[in-house]
């Protein structure tokens, strides 16, 4: 039970960082990225190769020889930062290529292509990250036994998750966040009112890619290995599904998506009867999430925690001063009977409907 909870807490907080990043990208700004997990993978690989040093003697030569670039032995916080920066640089490259066309479907197709390219390069260029064999024996960031080490990683992950949540919260509740939501709703309107759509899209894509890279680094700290099998396209699909079910556009919904949908469900599959083989557990989880996604899209598209629960920055109404009046001839305001409201749809009734 303790192991179950520790596992849930570590993996939940790491995937929550991913989903907070994905929420900024997709939920808030409307940028569709079908290969978000590729950025997680880049962060994982780069964190690993900048901290694990040279291969152990047993893996230095011979048929089991482990090959990878850099082979640095940097302290883990620096390695983690490099992992985040590497993913952010890939994100910058992708978004610079894709954002020239403002249509979100164009970006989505570019991300699919990038995912295939990165996967195949890493899988086949053995000298980069040891190809299909992947990296293993990635050292722990603290010399502790299993359970204290999990607690240590929980502490690190939760701190980083809190930072990501804070950044996401500050962005969402600022005028910049308002622009991101305008871009999500209608890029033509955003441009018509002078917003630099491309710049905002680039910044958000880079920030969320950085978060993906950080979460990838944390993952290799926990699992101690990484290979192309860890970032199949299904993983990106599961992230998007978890975000939609949790509450697209709401960073608290991202937490629900992570802890309850992704990791909670994965842990619950442990309760499956022994007659079901271990290899079937992953597909069963994916099927459950897929069915959940369909049901939510049909019956509750706003997710468990809808974006509407987030209250944008709204200070108390300050008594108006005459000097603030922006409209010429404002003295006539109020002379016209209130007829605008007579055609209004009752908001409560509309919501209920």
């Amino acid at each position, binding site marked *: 039970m303790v192991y179950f909870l520790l596992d849930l807490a570590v993996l939940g907080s790491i995937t929550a960082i991913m989903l907070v990043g994905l929420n900024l990208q997709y939920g808030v700004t409307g940028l569709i990225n079908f290969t978000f997990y590729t950025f997680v993978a880049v962060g994982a690989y780069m964190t690993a190769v900048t901290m694990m040093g040279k291969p152990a003697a047993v893996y230095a030569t011979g048929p089991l020889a482990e090959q990878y670039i850099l082979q640095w032995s940097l302290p883990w916080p620096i390695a983690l930062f490099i992992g985040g920066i590497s993913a952010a640089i890939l994100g910058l490259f992708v978004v610079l290529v894709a954002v020239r066309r403002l249509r979100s479907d164009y970006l989505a197709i570019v991300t699919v292509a990038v995912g295939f390219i990165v996967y195949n390069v890493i899988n086949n260029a053995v000298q980069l990250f040891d190809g299909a064999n992947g990296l293993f024996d990635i050292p722990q960031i603290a010399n502790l036994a299993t359970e204290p080490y999990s607690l240590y990683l929980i502490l690190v992950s939760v701190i980083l998750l809190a930072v990501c949540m804070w950044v996401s919260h500050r*962005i969402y509740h600022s005028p910049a966040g308002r622009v991101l939501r305008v871009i999500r709703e209608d890029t033509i309107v955003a441009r018509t009112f002078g917003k630099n759509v491309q710049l905002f899209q680039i910044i958000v894509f880079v920030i969320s890619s950085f978060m993906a890279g950080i979460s990838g680094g944390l993952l290799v700290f926990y699992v101690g290995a990484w290979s192309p099998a860890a970032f199949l396209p299904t993983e990106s699909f599961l992230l998007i599904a978890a975000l939609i079910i949790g509450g697209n556009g709401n960073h608290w919904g991202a937490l629900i998506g992570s802890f309850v949908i992704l990791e909670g469900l994965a842990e619950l599959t442990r309760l499956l009867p022994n007659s079901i083989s271990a290899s079937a557990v992953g597909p069963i989880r994916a099927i459950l999430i897929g069915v959940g996604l369909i049901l939510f899209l049909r019956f509750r598209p706003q997710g468990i925690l809808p974006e509407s629960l987030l209250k944008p*920055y709204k200070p108390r109404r300050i008594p108006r001063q005459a000097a603030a009046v922006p409209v010429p001839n404002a003295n006539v305001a109020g002379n016209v009977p209130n007829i*605008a409201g007579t055609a209004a749809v009752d908001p409560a009734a509309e919501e209920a409907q």
Partner: protein
Amino acid sequence: MTEGANSIPALHAKGAHEVHDFGALGSVAPVLDIQNVAFHYGGVQALAGATFKVPKGKVTGLIGPNGAGKSTLVEVIAGGLRPSEGQILYDGTNIAGLPREQIFRLGITRTFQQTRLLPRLSVLENVMMSAQNQVGENMGLAIFGARKWEPQERELIDRADYLLDWLQLGRLRDQPARVLSGGQRRLLEIARALMSEPRLLVLDEPGAGVYPALMRLIGERIREIVSDSVSVLLVAHNMSFVSLVCDYVVVMDQGRVLTAGQLDEVRANKSVVEAYLGF
């Protein structure tokens, strides 16, 4: 009045003091001088050398039958379409072909023929998004410098509240824009446009699909908006609305300008009667 617009030198560039004889309106400086503007969608010529001037500080109506090229011209003025020929002088500066963002920063704001509100954003946010020069739109300050943008944000909220009250949408300020009726959407588009403190407001059929009493309110508000520093170019079909609101009328047909003048003058024009008015 217009902090953002005043910071743009082009607004006060050459031609700002030149005047044009607008007939019964007298000699007025044009805010917009459209010269021989042409545009075609593939093989269809939507604008075929449209030429006219928009007087400063007045409401100019742009009328004509369906397919006359009015909305295409609005798109061209607002930067949505690049004309194949011609010039559009805004206070003496050619703005033809500039992107939407730049046109907006010069002080030209438009509304849309089919309203384009942001359905999931609140009514208040729909208005606030259009304010120029928002400090908090800098991503760095958004994350780390709330103290730098919050005072401005409070002022903007106050101004947006004023506009919403003025357009009788105040009680809906916190509702998502999707719950508004058709007429209220038109009003909200006007509020959003005014929030940017435009010098030229381009309204594309602001009275379309609106019941008469609300249309009268929109018309009255448009009259109140106009001042020495705010001009309006308005596309409309409804002649009673045009007569209520417009100082000057330009009639288009088949991508060209048939005539321009005060409504009584254009009504007397035989080609206008044949092409549009039908009497």
